[in-house]
């Protein structure tokens, strides 16, 4: 397939693939088994100048867009999505600053992320605010020239590891969703602590923790955009970041398929390699076709976003939904090709199978993605009728 990548994008792929082959694949089983945050690998990624792909050059980045970013995420995900999510969560944490920050905020917070010397994270989810993001209960009260934050964020990727957090809190309860605001909170601020590291089914190299705010005072200057814009910041951020999750799906699926096809050529049963059996060939054909379809949808969405088109919620939801469903299907079929060996930890598909599940859940469950897509289609139809 010709993906029409620029020379720079081909370099990004080549470099990310090298890091994946030399550093992620040889270490992924250990990182998973011992739940080790991939600090060393993230440093290697940073040294290769891949942290700031989507950050403008003026702030020390590469000046690329979503397309450049997802190419790197896809390659890393071929190796391990526990590592790739730790890398990608930085974009989710810092994009609100990029899109809504003041010049001062950008000057202060973007360069260390672009250089990879600091990590970022995004705090929206709470115990009672998952798919229903409107249910946020964390509050931020303006006292003098400070906001005082109280509440607990849950399941925050890079929680505890990141230095810079974008957090959604309620500034005006009476206004419901319009009473939410977005803030930048730095690690080390008094009153800001972390809960225990979560013990997860998959992506065990990544760190997931609670963010706990108890009378946490942050400067007024750390408000992102205006008061009341928190929900818009969150939704725009998710629209923008969902292709990253789709890229994780495509990469994971690609890695699982490659492993399964290789194994099917080596494993002999009934006197033939199992790749000679049509039952397996059809599995391989379906995997290859669906991965390619997911990749095309992903690349096209990323390019749509980079073209400056403002209306891409639906495309973003579609690529996330499709690619992550494909990832789960492919991980399942790949494991089936491996048979009993696939169920064992010695082979990588066992981990891929466990890892894949989260893709259908985080950054908006796939049910929520379907809501977004359907509502968009219905709205467009209604608009058509009015004309």
């Amino acid at each position: 397939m010709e993906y029409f990548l620029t020379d720079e994008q081909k370099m990004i792929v080549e470099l990310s693939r090298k890091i994946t082959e030399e550093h992620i694949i040889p270490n992924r089983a250990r990182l998973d088994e011992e739940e080790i945050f991939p600090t060393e690998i993230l440093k290697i990624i940073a040294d290769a100048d891949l942290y700031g792909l989507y950050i403008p050059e003026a702030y020390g980045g590469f000046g690329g867009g979503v397309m450049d970013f997802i190419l790197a995420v896809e390659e890393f995900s071929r190796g391990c999505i526990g590592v790739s999510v730790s890398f990608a969560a930085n974009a989710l944490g810092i994009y609100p600053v990029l899109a809504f920050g003041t010049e001062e905020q950008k000057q202060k917070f973007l360069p260390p992320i672009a250089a990879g010397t600091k990590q970022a994270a995004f705090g929206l989810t709470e115990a009672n605010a998952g798919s229903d993001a409107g249910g946020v209960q964390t509050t931020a009260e303006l006292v003098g020239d400070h906001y005082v934050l109280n509440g607990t964020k849950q399941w925050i990727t890079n929680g505890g590891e990141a230095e810079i957090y974008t957090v959604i809190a309620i500034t005006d309860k009476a206004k419901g969703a319009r009473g939410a605001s977005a803030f930048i909170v730095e690690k080390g601020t008094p009153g800001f602590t972390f809960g225990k590291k979560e013990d997860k089914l998959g992506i065990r190299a990544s760190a997931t923790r609670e963010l706990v705010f108890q009378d946490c005072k942050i400067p007024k200057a750390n408000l992102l955009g205006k008061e009341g814009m928190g929900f818009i910041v969150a939704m725009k951020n998710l629209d923008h970041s969902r292709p990253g999750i789709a890229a994780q799906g495509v990469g994971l699926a690609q890695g699982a398929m490659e492993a399964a096809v290789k194994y099917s050529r080596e494993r002999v049963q009934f006197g033939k390699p199992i790749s000679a059996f049509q039952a397996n060939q059809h599995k391989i054909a379906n995997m290859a076709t669906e991965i390619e379809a997911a990749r095309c949808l992903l690349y096209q969405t990323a390019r749509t976003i980079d073209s400056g088109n403002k209306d891409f919620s639906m495309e973003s939801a579609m690529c996330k939904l499709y690619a992550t469903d494909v990832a789960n299907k492919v991980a399942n079929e790949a494991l089936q090709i491996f048979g009993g060996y696939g169920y064992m930890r010695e082979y990588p598909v066992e981990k891929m199978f466990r890892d894949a599940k989260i893709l259908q859940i985080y950054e908006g469950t796939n049910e929520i993605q379907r809501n977004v897509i359907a509502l968009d289609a219905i709205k467009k139809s209604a608009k058509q009728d009015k004309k």
Partner: protein
Amino acid sequence: MNIAVCIKQVPDSDKVTIDRETNRLNRAGVPSVINPFDENALELGLQLKDKYGGKVTVITMGPPQAEEALRECVSVGADEVILVTDRKFAGSDTWATSYTLSLAVQKAGDFDVVLFGKQAIDGDTAQVGPGVAYFMDIPVITYVKEAEKTDTGFKVKRVTEEGYQLWEVDGKAAFTVVKEANTMRLPSLKGKMRAKSATIITWGADDLGAEDAKIGLKGSPTIVKKVFSPPIKTNRETIQNEDPKQSVKELLGKLKERKLI
């Protein structure tokens, strides 16, 4: 510190296949790579630059396509790259190559240190590093693993079959570098982009003022008389105890450890 690194582009030995009919190497279409030991020399050069500041100049002698290897050197951090190429150099043996390269190194600058890989994986002679040092009339230390600057020159750790030796050298020197020294760093995206547009300085025989009789086939006294596989040398270990029972126990332990029994 002014550092020169001499590299060679070689066929990627992992990808070379053998033509079963003629028993010759299928060299056509085999990708070329930087000689692996030269990567160690380059990395040592880059580390010296990181530590003491300065500049790394990479020089290669070869056909025009060796430019590709030089661009790779830029992507990991080489400051200047020079390609020494001329039809007149065709057929150079290690003697003629050493002479030619020594002229290029001297023309390129006044270097504190000239680095080489311990040998090239295609010819395996390990002669060009010491040869260049001979023509430049500077000391050479082979099989170097570590190097650091001193007030007057360098202190180096040299690997031997039994262990290592520490050497000190005053003034300018040449080192040939072993694999154990390091692993070459990954390129960066900015480095790769810089490599794409980097200027490759190209010198021919006339630019170097090389004497015709000393270059290419004419300047190459080597005659290959016979090609044969050397006997395989394996590591030998002696287990010796007062009590032979103890020796047997140790031997069994070692065999088990290596999963041989």
